[in-house]
């Protein structure tokens, strides 16, 4: 099918309209992850037995492998703090889960901190974060 100039313009303005929506309006369609305060409800977050594996420099910012391990967690959430929508994933663990870990891939808009928060069985929260660098490429030695 061929786009006419008019159709192209309409499609283009649709995209613009979408990007002008306030972030909270879009975030509302991802109620499970949201932002860190949605998860912790403002409770204090400490460090603890939680490990976040990320590359030091992303090989491809569009698909960065990450892994979180938090023994004893009932839920783990991950946030890419520099993305327009920081929420990445939310994973709950039942009482019979053999291990409390999750891995996924995340698109990063640029160099930023990736934050992992775990909710423990007693309702407390622990977290850790890593900076992941996204570069446009350099020159090898």
């Amino acid at each position, binding site marked *: 099918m061929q786009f006419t100039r008019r159709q192209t313009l309409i499609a283009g303005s649709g995209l613009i309209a979408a990007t002008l929506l306030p972030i909270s309006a879009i975030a509302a369609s991802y109620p499970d992850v949201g932002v860190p305060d949605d998860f912790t409800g403002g409770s204090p977050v400490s460090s603890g037995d939680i490990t976040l594996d990320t590359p030091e420099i992303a090989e491809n910012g569009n698909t960065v492998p990450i892994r979180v391990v938090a023994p004893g967690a009932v839920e783990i959430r991950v946030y890419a703090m520099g993305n327009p929508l920081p929420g990445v994933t939310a994973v709950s663990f039942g009482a019979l889960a053999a291990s409390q870990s999750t891995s996924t891939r995340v698109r990063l808009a640029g160099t930023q901190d990736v934050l992992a928060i775990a909710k423990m069985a007693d309702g407390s929260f622990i977290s850790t974060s890593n900076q992941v660098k996204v570069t*446009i490429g350099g020159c090898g*030695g």
Partner: protein
Amino acid sequence: MISRRDFLQVGLAASAIVGSSAFGTWGRLSANQALTQDQLLQFKTYGNVSLIHITDIHAQLKPVFFREPSVNLGVGMNKGAVPHITGADFRRLYGIEDGSASHYALSSDDFAALAQSYGRVGGLDRVATVINAIRADRPDALLLDGGDTWHGSYTCYHTQGQDIVNVMNALKPDAMTMHWEFTLGSERLLELVESLPFSVLGQNIFDREWDEPMLEIFPPYKMFERGGVQIAVIGQAFPYLPIANPHWKFPEFSFGIRDENIAAMIDEVRSAGADCVVLLSHNGFDVDKKLASVVPGIDIILSGHTHDALPEPVIIDKTIIVPSGSNGKFVSRIDLDIDSGIVRGYKHKLIPVFSDVIEPDPTVTSLIDAQRAPFNDALSEVIGTTDTMLYRRGNFNGTWDDLICDGILVERDAEIALSPGVRWGTSLIPKQEITREDIWNVTSMTYGETYRVEMTGEFLKVVLEDVADNIFNPDPFLQQGGDMVRTGGLGYHIDVNKSIGERISEMTLLSTGEPIDPHRNYVVAGWASVNEGTEGPQIWDLVENYIREIGVVELEPNYSVKVVV
């Protein structure tokens, strides 16, 4: 500044290992004293195991000139630490006499004059003689190649690495790791790897799709029984291949430092009975120093990538780090006394391969000549001559890239030229003829197209800041180990101690003297783009045309980059 004496004491105090470096025997010979092969090779065999390390050969089969950098800045905790000490300061640190053989081999000044006295370095037939001599002392010595071997010359390009593979196989390495080899493209790389009579090791070479190690093709380590003990050699390929080089040529692979996996491999080999753990690394020196400080249990790191040559190892905690230079200029020998899982002592020598002093091994000479024979006419054609010494190394510029950028500006009618900050590329001394082979030695690669595009001033700044952060980030794990992208037609100031976005200032278009306007478009030409589909003439053809046109290369000193340290 720390004195050499303090430096040695720091090294020894931090370690229970008793060690020595036999560097002095050749280091103090001056130009008017004759060097001999026996002096260069002299080594009292020690302990029960010998390691031989060679790295970053860049496919240089024949002897070459190679000038070390005069500018090599360290940042953060590596500010003022080796290898970020150059010239006279470097010689004072190690007690090297001015004008001596080691001055010529290890530092940069008076290079052209000393090159006349001491001649060329390297040549894999001379390297073979050194290796054979060590094997005569210790028949089961391990020969380990740190990679960047199958890249960097006319014949390597035209045989897709077959020439250097054939010659290296004759040297009988026990293992290697890799970097530029991947730029041959996955298909050719795997074809060559499968043909090898030894292993290519890489604990950080992973399948990209599943993020799993590729144990069949690239085992993470190999165990060797030597001198009655078990030596585990773990491989570490260059961590940032997909960023620094075109990932589309090897899309199946993922890398990274993966220090947790190194720790896991150390546990695995120790459980399997390893008495000594060697990391055959293409990380770069500062990355290896940090790695030694965060991952315990590595006895020796054989360090490559950043092309540093140091006459003595650097010891971090209990890890001995040995960098062995580049281009076949040096071979490191490390003898170890290993007993019941403990390295009790070491003896080290960085052996300089002075090609007029060390006899070539005749078998390897004829093998090298056979590889080159089909290309001899093309290799030896004289394109021009140079009145200026041509070299590449230096954090911000070198005369080869000044010449290449001049050529790009003229041949592609651009306002600004960019040349990648790679560290390979051999040198020429004044009054030398420039052959086609010489041009290929500084340009050969599988993605040498010279693009011509428009970039805004703002984007140019982003590019410079991004590259600068890959070199001068204070965290060594975020350094990629190259040098700054070279610029033609563009001057700037750089403060290496600032952070990304703040290092570069005073960007100036040199043709008009006007500041770079962030909103204006500039015509920019350059080579070695990592993007697929880049179009333009190959850089070696462009440089050859340019040198033919000017006939004699005569360059003005380049003051276009002002550095704040």
